């Protein structure tokens, strides 16, 4: 049987289904940012940005951009009614202090025990940059990862142990890839969903760590 990988937008749409009403959420740069496009209007989800915004909204209309109203990705945003501004100390209190319900981040690699690598390839000539990734990894109540299941070269991104430098240890709760959804548990990596037409054996072959089949039916 053949199968269709999920697009980046489909992954974002899938994550959005797991964000409950009233959640305080930090969406990382890139794919995670797209999740905001799929949050239903009847839910109040409070989006946090590390540079001091809570309850920010979509990009402004053309011509209404304010260079002093940007998100962590340095993109122009707007504020929702009821939103607030605060300084970096308070912002990282929200992140590190366990006040955010969910952080959604990208990944270079996730290990079977929930270790995350997403800040540095470790290459000698690479200029390292970390931003708020390490704070979110250790501080949010739940850490969700969105990622392609494999690199462009076909290497697995879900591995037994990291080969890239770690961002945080045992911090990942759930992984959403273009092939499946995996819960990181004490017992191991449990696949709870996979795309139609992809067998568990095929998925296991594409993955660098042992998986447990927990799909329904």
């Amino acid at each position: 049987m053949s199968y269709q990988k999920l697009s980046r937008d489909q992954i974002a749409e899938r994550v959005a289904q797991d964000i409950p009403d009233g959640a305080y959420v930090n969406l990382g740069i890139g794919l995670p940012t797209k999740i905001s496009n799929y949050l239903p209007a009847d839910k109040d989800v409070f989006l946090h940005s590390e540079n001091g915004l809570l309850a920010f909204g979509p990009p402004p209309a053309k011509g209404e951009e304010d260079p002093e109203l940007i998100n962590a990705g340095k993109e122009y945003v707007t504020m929702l009614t009821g939103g607030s501004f605060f300084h970096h100390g308070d912002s990282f209190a929200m992140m590190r202090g366990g006040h955010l319900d969910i952080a959604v981040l990208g990944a270079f690699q996730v290990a079977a025990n929930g270790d995350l690598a997403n800040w540095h390839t470790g290459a000698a000539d690479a200029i390292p940059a970390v931003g708020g990734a390490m704070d979110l990894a250790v501080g949010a109540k739940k850490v969700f990862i969105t990622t392609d299941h494999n690199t462009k070269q076909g290497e697995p991104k879900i591995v037994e142990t990291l080969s890239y430098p770690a961002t945080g240890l045992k911090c990942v709760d759930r992984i959403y890839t273009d092939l499946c959804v995996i819960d990181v548990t004490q017992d191991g990596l449990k696949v709870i969903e996979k795309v139609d037409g992809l067998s568990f054996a095929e998925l296991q072959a594409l993955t660098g760590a042992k998986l447990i089949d927990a799909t329904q039916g």
Partner: protein
Amino acid sequence: MIDKSTLTLTEALSQIKDGATIMIGGFGTAGQPAELIDGLIELGIKELVIVNNNAGNGDYGLAKLLKTGAVRKIICSFPRQSDSWVFDELYRAGKIELELVPQGNLACRIQAAGMGLGAVFTPTGFGTLLAEGKETRHIEGKDYVLEYPIKADFALIKAHQGDRWGNLVYNKSARNFGPIMAMAADITIAQVSELVELGQLDPEHIITPGIFVQHVVAVDAANGTGA
């Protein structure tokens, strides 16, 4: 009568000497005190240590300062950006030292300095390259890294309004590091878009109380000149 707004931008900055550690507010260009940085460049001082979230964007502001070769070391969380070519070149040429700090640790180390704390145990970075060689402690089931305060001789920050006592309010996401840097430096120079009369800022709404600010410089946002 106390008036912290009497010095010109150049007069306020001229207190800064070679080798100073300077915190500069801003997240990217939001909240970056561009006019103060331009004034700093004109001083022509050297061997500076700069504390900022980033390492400059494009060819202006902090990037322009780096380009002059005045900066010996930068302490920041996110130097690599699509438009950070000035830093990238200096770094690859070995002409600038980088201390990379996770952003929340940067914030809490600055806060620790401002609050008079000796150090902080933070969970951020535990078990990573950025905690290598640092003291750690296991407290109530969780692992922490010991991080020391970051103090500065000067903080250069941007606020929206200020009064002659140094009370400040900010504009939207331009607030970012301003309030905590103001607490962590011996001398804080705030550039403000508008200098207001004492009493015009509602005490309930003042974000940075004047005790943390030594100089307020009004900058005409339209042409960028110091008042």
